């Protein structure tokens, strides 16, 4: 097969781009196969494991828990097709978070915030466009929302399951993505059904949420069964995952409303994240 790999100059351009604090989404069946020993590959938080089969690699993909793709289950892929399913590399993590695995438990994508949270990258060994939309519950447009929030450097990202049915209820993971300068800091997640502006000032931070009854409910129920890990400590990388669990159906009146989340660093309150929305649908 013809080698269309990156030239040395292109590889350096990508390295420089990331080192400047910018973000890259990269996909390619053979990016690892051709570049596993090049410095550019180490920028994406993964280790190459294998080249995959000539065809018949990815039937479906599932999002990994506690990552950007939490809640993305059984996304069909264009299996056995030239070219998206040819020699699809499989990988393991090397500093990054594995976000997608295929049906045989091989890892196919990773997100990475750089060695010290200095940039954002997503690397997929499969073609984004070869995933099949799975109706309203998980489709490529929703996945792109989570990808873009991560690539834009948001420090609060609601995972791909950014909609919850009030009829069925459900869970959503909230990713807190600061950097190592916040390691060990206590944080608290806040939320509001009343929008993000004007918000209010607290400590030396501006909190992009309007106070309402839901805001008060959340701040008085941190770490309950519904609001797991809503107040805890950021890990050594300055990261954490909190989980909302509706514990069953919600009041139908919530349908069509948006619950925005943000988190603050505490003791002292000197940082507030961006707001990130979770939609309630019928």
């Amino acid at each position, binding site marked *: 097969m013809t080698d269309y790999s990156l030239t040395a100059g292109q590889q350096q351009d990508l390295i420089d781009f990331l080192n400047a604090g*910018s973000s*890259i989404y990269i996909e*390619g069946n053979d990016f690892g196969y051709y570049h596993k020993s090049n410095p550019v590959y180490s920028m994406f938080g993964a280790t190459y494991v294998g080249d995959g089969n000539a065809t018949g690699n990815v039937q479906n993909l599932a999002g990994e828990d506690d990552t950007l793709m939490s809640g993305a289950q059984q996304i*069909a892929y*264009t299996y056995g097709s*030239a070219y998206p399913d040819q020699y699809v590399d499989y990988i393991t993590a090397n500093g990054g978070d594995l976000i997608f695995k295929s049906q045989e438990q091989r890892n196919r994508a990773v997100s990475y915030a750089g060695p010290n949270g200095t940039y954002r990258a997503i690397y997929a060994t499969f*073609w984004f*466009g070869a995933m099949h939309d799975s109706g309203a519950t998980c489709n490529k447009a929703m996945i792109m929302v989570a990808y873009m929030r991560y690539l*834009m450097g948001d420090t609060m990202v609601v995972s791909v399951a950014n909609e919850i049915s009030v009829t069925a209820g459900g869970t959503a993971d909230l990713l807190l993505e600061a950097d190592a300068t916040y390691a060990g800091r206590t944080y608290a997640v806040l939320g509001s059904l009343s929008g993000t502006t004007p918000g209010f000032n607290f400590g030396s931070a501006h909190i992009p949420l309007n106070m309402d009854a839901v805001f008060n409910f959340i701040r008085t129920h941190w770490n309950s069964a519904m609001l797991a890990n809503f107040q805890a400590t950021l890990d050594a990388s300055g990261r954490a995952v909190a989980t909302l669990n509706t514990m069953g159906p919600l009041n139908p009146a919530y349908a069509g409303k948006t619950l925005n989340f943000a988190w603050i660093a505490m003791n002292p309150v000197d940082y507030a994240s961006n707001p990130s929305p979770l939609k309630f649908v019928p």
Partner: protein
Amino acid sequence: MRLRLLAIMTALAFLLAPMALSQSILVWDKDHNLTFQDPEGGGQVDATYGVTKALTANGYTFTKVTTLPADLSPYNILFVIMGSYC
């Protein structure tokens, strides 16, 4: 009058430049024209089709190129779509 207009335009440029830069997206189409059947019925499409469609669906604008520009500084998010064999 011209000076006043120039001053206003300069001020606007300073105000608007950071807003535009904050979501300046470059899509590098490096899939060397491999196509496949779009699972959503779009016919034969290349590897960038699904990415650009999802970006557009979410209101993002982007610049798409087939050759990586020498200067990437105008952009802060790069999509590298490599297809197969690279």
